[in-house]
């Protein structure tokens, strides 16, 4: 039996244009790639994250992926595993990012790894908005410091999750530096075409020129929400259904929950009535995050630059 083409494994991070890459690049057969998907919940990509530490069976997971890899190969497409949860989750400080990396290496030892990183202040603003959107109740200050006194009973937000050099170093040690491509999200924002071309070169599967031309680089599948809408809608999360972000709702109300959704989706920056308040709210949120972050990432960003050769300073990173 012929050896299978090694997969491209895109591990995230969250909030770095992952949906666009999955839908427009890896999910479009004309590009020469095949995203192996993530549905349903029994999909083996979830097992990489969800299997309990004593239960994980790399050979069994590999076997589950095998037919998908073979189908992609038979169709002449490069298989792509793309799932940002593979880099850990910011709401729990990336507590399992190393364990997942080890699992990825066991299941796909010859894989090429793609990691997209994002400047930390902008990353944390976006992560917090997503947290409220997903039902989180805590205001920003409490989100950033989930407990007055940390007791290591339940992992919460941890700034260390965005010290990227740690995870990049671990992936390099597992797969070899040449098999890990790190790109900044800011490059995607500024030059999406160059960003896609860099991925294609690394994966060894360049896109036909006409396909590259047709890619909807201007489309964003996950538009950012305004800080004002997030702030106004947050208290209504106390009436949303119970989840790991909302352990004890006051009571569950579909009406109030839907009201919150409508507020979050409202274009408050676009409306003349709310624009000023929305801009002020956005500025305040960004300032609060910037003050909380301080210069804590300067050293880590320096290490990331040394490891990747990226000019992160030119993209507005703190270096």
């Amino acid at each position: 039996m012929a050896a299978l083409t090694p997969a491209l494994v895109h591990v995230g991070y969250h909030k770095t244009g992952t949906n666009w890459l999955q839908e427009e690049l890896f999910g479009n057969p004309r590009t020469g790639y095949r995203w192996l998907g993530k549905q349903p919940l029994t999909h083996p990509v979830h097992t990489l994250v969800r299997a309990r530490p004593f239960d994980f069976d790399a050979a069994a997971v590999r076997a589950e992926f095998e037919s998908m890899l073979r189908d992609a190969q038979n169709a002449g497409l490069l298989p792509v595993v793309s799932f940002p949860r593979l880099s850990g989750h910011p709401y729990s400080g990336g507590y399992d990012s190393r364990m997942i990396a080890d699992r990825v290496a066991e299941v796909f030892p010859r894989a090429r790894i793609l990691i997209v990183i994002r400047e930390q202040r902008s990353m944390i603003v976006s992560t917090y908005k997503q947290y409220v959107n997903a039902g989180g109740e805590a205001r920003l200050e409490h989100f950033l410091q989930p407990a007055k006194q940390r007791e290591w009973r339940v992992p919460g937000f941890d700034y260390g999750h965005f010290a990227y050099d740690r995870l990049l170093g671990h992936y390099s040690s597992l797969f070899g530096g040449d098999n890990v491509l790190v790109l900044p999200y800011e490059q995607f924002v500024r030059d999406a075409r160059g960003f896609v071309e860099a991925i294609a070169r690394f994966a060894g599967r360049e896109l036909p020129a006409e396909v590259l031309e047709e890619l909807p680089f201007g489309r964003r599948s996950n538009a950012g929400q305004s800080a004002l809408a997030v702030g106004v809608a947050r208290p209504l999360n106390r009436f949303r259904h119970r989840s790991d972000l909302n352990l004890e709702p006051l009571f569950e109300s579909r009406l109030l929950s839907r009201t919150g959704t409508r507020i979050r989706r409202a274009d408050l920056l676009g409306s003349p009535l709310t624009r000023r308040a929305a801009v002020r709210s956005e500025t305040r949120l960004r300032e609060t995050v910037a003050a909380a972050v301080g210069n804590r990432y300067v050293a880590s960003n320096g290490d990331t630059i040394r490891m990747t050769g990226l000019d992160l300073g030119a993209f507005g990173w703190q270096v």
Partner: protein
Amino acid sequence: MAAPLIHIGYHKTGTKWLRGGLFLNKNAGYHWIDKDTPPVRRIVRAHPLEFDPEESRGEFEPLLAEADQKSLMPVICWGRLAGQAFSGGYDTKEIADRLKAVFPDGRIVVVVREQRSMIVSTYKQYLKAGGPSGIEAFLQPGSDQGWRIPLFDFDYFQYHLLIGYYNKLFGADNVLPLPYEELVRDRRSFLTKIGEFSGNPVPEEVLAEMTGAKRRNPAQSALVLGATRVLNRFGPRSELNPAPLMESMLVHGAATKLRKKLDPANLRATRGLAQRSEQSLKQAVAEAVGDRYFESNRITAELLGVDLAAYGWLL
């Protein structure tokens, strides 16, 4: 230098009693390495991408040397080393690997407890520590959760997995698994086994002292814990309660006092109610547990070489 005895828990299996009565007893021949010292804490707290076993060994060396100089058996005793039930034991394997990397010759004691009783006790501890959820929500936190935050997980109490893993890492001869129920029924036997296993037999006067001692961590009644649960919504922000409705030290203080002072089981007027409340909690847990641990318990019984059914375990 002597390899340490490492008592990893679980929580709610008499760990504090053992620590206070045996490992801190100056006549017992142990040198307890405080669980609050930074190197012990780091075994649990260091992020997986930061933990360095070499560095950790270096930090432990002077602590082990101190025990050596005093001709005492070094011991680390911390229930958190077996994971934490409130987050489903997400780091139990990671901690086991760290202990092996730092103390390759360590000798491990692990105490397990019948799951229904364990979960009742765990939930009471959760309420005491400020958790806001009712028992059903505690046992099934966030039905649609996307594995974003690890929370309670029944599988955490499949003890055979943890014991089997420690056996694999350290060798079965270096792992002593004991049932908590043995401690409850026969303290002398329980303590004697630990002493023999560690190569540091427990002196008779310590045995006498400990078999006659009172419990250090008495259980609180389900009634008072349940009644004060609503006050946890006004308690300080914590990992168990990350978004309280309002933080009020006054309400929090009142809740703590009520829990400490009030025991409805001691009041004639409320004794019946307290018993019903206890019963109802136990029943809810028993129903949720069902027969999910049968298979695991059978393997655990074999690993322990103990008739766990005789101790009331389901198997």
